[in-house]
C-alpha cells in the first residue's frame, strides 16, 4: 500500500512515524521483505561526511559610511570573489593565497561558524554613488547580514576507489596514495550514503529538505557534473561517480561539528560537509531501494598514478574489510571520509524526525534524466585525440 508525503508527515507530527537509519534498515532487510519493510517503516535517514571541494558561502557584509563598491576583497588575506554587487562575496572553499596554501576559503567558513573575527579589507575605484576606495575592518558571523552556505556539487552518488601503481607517493584529494598499490582509499559511506538509497532520485529533487552541517538545508538543483546515465550494476547502483546535488543552508545556524576545513598536502583546500537526506518509504519499491547493503554496492578502482586508468571493480563490504584483491594482489584499504560522523548525522536526523521537528518535503521539480558529462577540449588538441 502506497503512502503519500502528507500521510508520512501526519505521522511525524503525531510522533507515530517509524524512522530507521539506512544501516538499520539494511540489517532489517536480511529478515524482512521490501513489502514488510514498506508496511513497518515510514522514513529512512542517510548520512555522509566527506571532503566536498565544490562548496562555499555567500556573504553580505552590510554597507559602510561612506559606502564602497568592493571590487577586490580579502578576508584574512585570502582573495575572495569581488564579482558580486557592492558588499557581497562568495567565499569558495578552495580560495587561497598561493604563498600560504594551507589556509583558505574553507578555513574562513569554519572560522566564521566558530564565531571568530575575520579581517576584511576591500578596494574599489570609487564611484559617484560609492565614493569610498578602501576599507579595513573586522567582521564576524553575527555582524554580517547574511551568510549562506551554497554548494554547487555535493554528496556524490558513489565515488571511485583511488590507488597508485607508480613508484612514487601521490598526494591527492583522495589522500596520500602509497607507491605500488600499498593502499587504496574510498570515500563513500556505502549503504548509509544518501544518493545510494534513492539511486534514481525518485524522492530527492529541487526543494528536498535535508540535514546540512547541523541545521536544515535544501536541495536547490541537480549538482554540477550530474551524470545520470552511468553504468549500473544488478542492484541498480551506478558503479562510479554519478549523480550529485546542489545544496543551500543558513551558515549562521551551522555547527562546527559537521563542517570542517581540510588541507591536502600538495593538493589544496577542501571542506568536510555533513549531509543527511531523509528517504520517505512511499511504497515497496522505495523499501527495496533503501534495503541495499554494502556487498551490493559496487564501485570502480582507479589508478590515480597512471592517468586514471580503470583497474577493476569492488564493493563496500570488501572495502570495509580492510583489504581488497586486485589481479591476485592484496591491497590495504582505508576510508578518507568519516563513517563515525555519517552515522552521527543519520542518527541526528532520525531523532529530529522522530520528535516531530523535521518534516519531509516533496520535490517541486525532479532531477534531470539522460545526462552525461562533457569533457573540456583543448584548442590545440588534434581532433583524433579523444578523452575518456
Amino acid at each position: 500500500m502506497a503512502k503519500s508525503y502528507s500521510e508520512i508527515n501526519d505521522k511525524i507530527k503525531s510522533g507515530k512515524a517509524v524512522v530507521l537509519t539506512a544501516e538499520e534498515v539494511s540489517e532489517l532487510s536480511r529478515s524482512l521483505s521490501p513489502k514488510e519493510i514498506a508496511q513497518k517503516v515510514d522514513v529512512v535517514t542517510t548520512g555522509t561526511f566527506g571532503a566536498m571541494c565544490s562548496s562555499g558561502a555567500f556573504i553580505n557584509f552590510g554597507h559602510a559610511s561612506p559606502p564602497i563598491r568592493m571590487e577586490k576583497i580579502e578576508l584574512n588575506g585570502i582573495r575572495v570573489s569581488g564579482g558580486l554587487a557592492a558588499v557581497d562575496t562568495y567565499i569558495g572553499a578552495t580560495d587561497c593565497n598561493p604563498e600560504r596554501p594551507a589556509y583558505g576559503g574553507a578555513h574562513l567558513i569554519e572560522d566564521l561558524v566558530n564565531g571568530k573575527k575575520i579581517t576584511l579589507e576591500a578596494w574599489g575605484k570609487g564611484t559617484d554613488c560609492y565614493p569610498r576606495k578602501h576599507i579595513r575592518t573586522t567582521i564576524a558571523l553575527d555582524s554580517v547580514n547574511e551568510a549562506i552556505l551554497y554548494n554547487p556539487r555535493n554528496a556524490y552518488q558513489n565515488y571511485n576507489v583511488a590507488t597508485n601503481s607508480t613508484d612514487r607517493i601521490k598526494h591527492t584529494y583522495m589522500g596520500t596514495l602509497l607507491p605500488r598499490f600499498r593502499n587504496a582509499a574510498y570515500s563513500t559511506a556505502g549503504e548509509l550514503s544518501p544518493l545510494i538509497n534513492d539511486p534514481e532520485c525518485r524522492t530527492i529533487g529541487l526543494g528536498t529538505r535535508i540535514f546540512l552541517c547541523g541545521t536544515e538545508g535544501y536541495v536547490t538543483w541537480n549538482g554540477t557534473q550530474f551524470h545520470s546515465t552511468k553504468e549500473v550494476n544488478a542492484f541498480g547502483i551506478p558503479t562510479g561517480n554519478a549523480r550529485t546535488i546542489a545544496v543551500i543552508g543558513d551558515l549562521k545556524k551551522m555547527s562546527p561539528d559537521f563542517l570542517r576545513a581540510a588541507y591536502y598536502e600538495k593538493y589544496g583546500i577542501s571542506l568536510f560537509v555533513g549531509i543527511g537526506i531523509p528517504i520517505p518509504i512511499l511504497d515497496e519499491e522505495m523499501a527495496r531501494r533503501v534495503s541495499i547493503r554494502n556487498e551490493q554496492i559496487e564501485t570502480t578502482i582507479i589508478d590515480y598514478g597512471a592517468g586514471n586508468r580503470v583497474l577493476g571493480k569492488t564493493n563496500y563490504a570488501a572495502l570495509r574489510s580492510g583489504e581488497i584483491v586486485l589481479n591476485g594482489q592484496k591491497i590495504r584499504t582505508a576510508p578518507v571520509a568519516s563513517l563515525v560522523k555519517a552515522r552521527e548525522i543519520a542518527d541526528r536526523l532520525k531523532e529530529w524526525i522522530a520528535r516531530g521537528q523535521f518534516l519531509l518535503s516533496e520535490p517541486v521539480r525532479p532531477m534531470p534524466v539522460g545526462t552525461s558529462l562533457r569533457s573540456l577540449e583543448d584548442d590545440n588538441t588534434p581532433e583524433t585525440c579523444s578523452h575518456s
Partner: protein
Amino acid sequence: MIKKVVLSFPVDATDRSLTYDLVKIYDIRINILKAEIEAGKSGKLLVELDADEAALADGLSYLESNGVTVSLLASKISYDKERCINCGNCASACFAKALTIGEPDWELHFNPEKCIVCKLCLKSCPLKLFRIEFADNIE
C-alpha cells in the same frame, strides 16, 4: 627481537663509528628511522635494532660505555583526539599499521608500538592534528 630506541650521542662520540660497531661486532641489524647527527656536535638517532636479546643487550651496553644515552622510544607521534573527525586519511597512509580505523567503531586507533615515525600522518591529516615530539623523549 626488535627494539626501537633513540640514541643520543655526546659531542665526543659523533666522530666515532659506533653504529658500525653494532653491526660488525654485535651482529645487530639497524634500520635508521631518523637522524639528527653532525660530526663535532651532539646528535640523535632513532633506530630500530633487530638481534637476539643477548646481542642487543651487549650492543646497547657498548654504546652506553661510550657515552651514548639509550632511551626507549615511547609515543613519538601524537594527535588532537578532540578535534579528530575519524576520516581515515592518516590510517590510509600509515603503512606501518600504527594508525588504524575499522570495525566495529570506525574510530581512529593509534598503537605507538608499531609507529616508525615516518611522519606521513603529519602530511596526510587534512585537519593537521598530528604533532611529532622528538626531543621530549630523549631523557
